């Protein structure tokens, strides 16, 4: 469950990042079909942003 996963820390500021979106990536699944979420047909990525510097990172939901 994404909401139970550890919060990400910004590599620039060290502060906790905000988890603001889930995005389905349909193209990443072409390279790695085993990672496709069968309920959605693509690979789910979490998007996180730093409240201090704005840096954004994504994390694959496994």
């Amino acid at each position, binding site marked *: 469950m*994404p909401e139970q996963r550890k919060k990400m820390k910004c590599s620039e500021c060290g502060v906790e990042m905000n988890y603001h*979106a889930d995005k389905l990536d349909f193209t990443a699944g072409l390279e790695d079909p085993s990672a496709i979420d069968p309920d959605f047909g693509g690979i789910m990525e979490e*998007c996180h942003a730093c409240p201090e510097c704005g840096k954004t990172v994504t994390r694959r939901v496994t």
Partner: protein
Amino acid sequence: MNDSRPIFIPVILGTPRQGRMSEHVANFVVDEVAKQDGVETELIDVRKVLLATDNAGQDIKDSQFSDTVNRADALILVAPEYNHGYPGVLKHLLDTNLKEYIHKAVGICGVSAGPFGGTRVIQNLLPVLRELGLVCIFWDGNFSTVQKTFDGSGKLLEQAYIRRLDKFFKELIWMAKVLRNGRENVSLT
């Protein structure tokens, strides 16, 4: 939120065509958006982002373009209407990124030789931009009969565009600020 950071709004010139009138529009838009308080901008010319044409999608990312989009709070697309759609080169470029766009604002300036100000290219771009995770604003730039709107040197001949674009910028900047606050402070769960 750290409000001291400027809002960064790059402008994408969406056609590589030789003799493109959209270049005048893009230059005008860059000059005008640069005048807005607390806003930084730069021009991204699709001609200058050299992408493979024997592949598509994120495999052919241009790192400089991705870094720019990643840093952006909003995008402005200057898109000419080609057969009621968008230039294929613009779509090819947009398709090379995905996560870089999420929860960022986008505004479109449609450009046409005809009288409808690129409304059909704008309408056709909306579903694409939505799938990319961008949030479309409800003001557009509509550059109709563009060959009469700028002279050959790119000088604006119709001053009404300055007021019209001002509304477009205000809305785009508002949305960019709201979405930055959302990305950084409003949790999905």
